[in-house]
């Protein structure tokens, strides 16, 4: 038995003896407003021409909707995204009531009603933006930030809190997750939250987004993933918090990239397009992308399905062994989709030597995929987790492997529900890009790409997302998520997130339409 290396070996020690020390990113919440001039909120506040600029509204509103900077004659246009709406009338600071000239009115914002869908409701989008702005879960008016309205899966599950008051203080709750449960001599890798970032390749998202994700992962001592698009040089300072993917197209996979990281992920399939491989349109294959992927610019790049050298668990083990030999300190993660036999796939991966099984359910995914695949191929992650968890328990290997769930986990509540269903942790993708301003318009693949500057390589569009801003938004969102997780766990009377794993008794189901009181 080789000795366990307790301290994580840094990229500097492994491959960059004379390199600069790894950068530190502070885990501090800082207010980070929307990057657009007009942030969207659930309500619109209108100020009519009857306004006499008396600024009574500025004095009464505690939310900062009305602002009149010193020296200004008129108040600014109401910052109505901060408004809590007509229910403010129940308080003593309702601007509409106080206005002596009746110049103010409050109503629903039509834009807020037009965005969103059953899975990511308007409320979820707005709440995620507020979390990314404030770093906190509280004070969002009546926005429903815990679940969507899809009528099933996570949206039809609620927490069942114990009757007796829990005695655990929030500061005593441990949210860390150990990613190496095998006693195989490889390093222990612990992340501070049971969440890491999903694979989004260079080309599918901009370099600014990639760096911001890596920086936020550094701040939270967790990971982000390169996806299948090579390992941009600008990510190298964050080696210790990057997972690099070995996927079916092998784009950008080199000995050097495998040796840099602490976790290597084998991507067999992805939830949004299970069994279909990947496809980067020619438009997005710019010279930079092509160089990274060792391909020809302008050509559409297909990542085929499946691994053409893997037709059995033995073949799979052979691949893991190769990578283990190339990088003796790396953990192996295996990303699979959710077919009928996902339990067998999971146990096969365990026997092949994987440390992490990452199951990607079909309703999530960030990249463009055929609509028919997203809805119809492979089962929703909610159903796959208990099946795999149970099977691994029955096989007696559950405690030697880490089970990670992804594919449609939108909120901190979804993550905890996934853990209660049997996962150890979760991978998050869409929520991260929503924090960066994604509106889920779904046009990731068309023309120049994302109008919001996230899923694009267009030089002009990517400038909309600046690295520092994006980093802080992600740090804030995770701070808010951790706050919610700690709150739920403390109310459950749990000192560690690991206590929640597989606790179906901590969940209850709701029939859609007759939800009753919420937790």
């Amino acid at each position, binding site marked *: 038995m080789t000795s366990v290396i307790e301290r994580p070996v840094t990229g500097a020690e492994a491959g960059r003896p004379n390199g600069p020390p790894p950068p530190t990113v502070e885990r501090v919440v800082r207010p980070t407003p929307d990057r657009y*001039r*007009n942030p*969207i909120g659930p309500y619109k506040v209108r100020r009519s021409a009857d306004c006499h600029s008396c600024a009574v509204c500025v004095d009464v509103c505690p939310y900062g909707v009305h602002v009149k900077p010193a020296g200004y004659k008129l108040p600014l246009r109401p910052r109505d995204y901060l408004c809590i709406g007509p229910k403010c009338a129940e308080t003593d600071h309702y601007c509409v009531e106080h206005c002596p000239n009746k110049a103010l009115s409050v109503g629903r914002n*039509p*834009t807020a*009603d*037009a*965005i969103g*869908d*059953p*899975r*990511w409701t308007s409320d979820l989008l707005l709440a995620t933006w507020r979390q990314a702005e404030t770093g906190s879960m509280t004070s969002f008016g009546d926005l429903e930030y815990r679940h969507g309205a899809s009528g*099933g899966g996570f*949206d*039809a*599950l609620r927490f069942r809190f114990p009757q007796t008051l829990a005695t655990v203080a929030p500061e005593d709750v441990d949210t860390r997750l150990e990613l190496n449960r095998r006693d195989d001599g490889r390093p222990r890798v612990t992340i501070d939250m049971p969440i890491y970032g999903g694979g989004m390749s260079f080309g599918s998202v901009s370099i600014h987004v990639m760096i911001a994700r890596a920086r936020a992962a550094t701040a939270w001592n967790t990971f982000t993933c390169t996806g299948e698009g090579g390992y941009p040089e600008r990510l190298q300072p964050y080696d210790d918090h990057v997972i690099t993917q070995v996927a079916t197209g092998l784009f950008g996979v080199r000995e050097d990239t495998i040796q840099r990281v602490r976790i290597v992920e084998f991507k*067999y399939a992805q939830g949004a397009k299970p*069994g*279909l*491989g990947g*496809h980067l349109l020619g438009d997005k294959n710019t010279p930079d992308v092509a160089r990274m992927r060792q391909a020809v610019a302008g050509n559409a790049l*297909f990542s085929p399905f*499946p691994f053409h050298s893997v*037709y059995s668990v033995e073949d799979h083990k052979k691949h893991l062994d190769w990578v283990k030999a190339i990088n003796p300190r790396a953990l192996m993660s295996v990303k*699979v989709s959710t*077919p*009928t*036999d*996902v339990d067998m*796939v999971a146990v096969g991966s365990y026997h092949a030597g994987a440390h992490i099984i990452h199951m990607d359910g079909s*309703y999530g*995914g*960030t990249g*463009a*995929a*055929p*609509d028919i695949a*997203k*809805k*119809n*191929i*492979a*089962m929703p992650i909610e*159903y796959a*987790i*208990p099946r795999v968890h149970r099977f691994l328990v029955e096989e007696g290997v559950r405690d030697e492997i880490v089970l990670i769930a992804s594919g*449609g986990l939108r909120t901190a509540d979804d993550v905890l529900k996934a853990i209660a269903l049997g996962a150890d942790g979760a991978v998050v993708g869409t929520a991260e*890009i929503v924090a960066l301003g994604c509106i*889920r*318009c*779904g*046009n*990731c*693949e068309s*023309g120049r790409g994302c*109008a*919001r500057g996230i899923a694009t390589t267009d030089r002009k569009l990517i400038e909309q997302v600046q690295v520092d801003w994006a980093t802080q938004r992600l740090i804030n969102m995770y701070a808010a998520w951790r706050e919610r997780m700690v709150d739920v766990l403390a109310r459950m009377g749990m000192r560690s997130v690991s206590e929640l794993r597989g606790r*179906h008794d901590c969940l209850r*189901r709701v*029939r859609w339409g007759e939800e009753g009181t919420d937790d």
Partner: protein
Amino acid sequence: MPERYHVPTVPTPGRFPKTGKYSIVDWREDCARCRNCVKNACVSGIWPLERAYDRDPTTPLEPSFDCRACLSCVQGCTKGILSLSVNPAYLMLGDGYWSREMLSTTWAQAETGRIPVSGAGYRGPFCGPGFDSMWTDMSEIVRPTRDGIHGREYISTSVDIGSKPLRVRFDADGVADEEPPLIELPVPFILDVPPWGSDGKRLATARASAAKTLRTLSVMRASQISDSDDLDTLAPLLDGEEIAANEPLLRGARLVELSDGPQVAHYVKQALNVNPRLVVGVRTPFTVHAGERLLRLHEAGVRVVHLCADEYGREVDTDEPRYLRDALREVHGCLVQEGIRDEVTLIVGGGIALAEHMAKAIICGADLVAVSAPLLVALGCRVCDGDHDASCPVQIQEIDADYGAQRMVNLMGAWHSQLIEVLGAMGIREVRRLRGETGRAMFLEDLDREAFGDIGY
């Protein structure tokens, strides 16, 4: 290299202005006329279309229906005078079965002939009735289609209609039985008569022409067929009494569908007497007794049955109809139980509205499906509840036949591509092997019981 099946799709815009989901409300009164107007930066190029209208009022003004709701202009406008709103006309589209999203995606497929693709995850409800509460399998590692995405052209979508004897009998002279006629179609669908409105001449011609291009069959009432029509792509639909009057049709056609009735066995024989090389199918309503009826028809020598569910994909003639998802599995199981499944060809129609319905109906036990309502939607039908013939708002009956055919071809081409996606993901090389493969599908009740069974309410 074997011949590849290819659907010649051609972009074919709709005849009427689009009913898009979004529109942008522009409160121009407050506009500051600033130099950095967000409209100039519109990534989808929608606002410049509006500018064209400003210069030339004859330009149609519905560009914002193409708006992709990226909100860049709404959020970026200096004065905040823009709002996104959902087009009220869009909200009025469809009915309880044909949702707005289904109409939009069908129109888009009929226009482009391409698979609908979007990013950032699935957007609909968790599950729904019927086919919406089942999922198809995928194959993680072991794949017969070894070449993945590049091998898809080798996935066969061919199916057979006709009698398939389970064994070959020999006598002293060799094979004793004559080989029964079998129709091989390159796609697992036929085009059926419209579920509502009349099957006017132009519509029928468009459908027949689409069937020819797609190399499948179009079901058509015998009274609609004229001498000049190409009988190779038509499947005449007859009542038994009409056989005598339509013998030339029966001699020229490959498949004929007879309406079910007490005398149908007799009529089948009568049709075969006219043309022994004809494939005769019986068109029967999908009632709760469909399994029993199928066995009786099989006893009477019928080998092709077209089961017609209602337009919502449910059983007919019952107060508590089941969806095809469940009813079809039972019927299929019934034939399997009797050991005659492979002798019978099951065509299933009614409520087949999306490409996934085709794949799922086949998984539940159909050999192929009959497509009807989507063909009307491809022509612009909004599934409104008006009088379909006299006052059709999109003038289906006045359609140009070539235009209509291309829209249908585009839609079915997109369906074909989507079927290949499903088959490719499952690692199944031909659609014949998908039939009844319920082990390669997952059903809501099973998943729910297994995963959430021990979680209380």
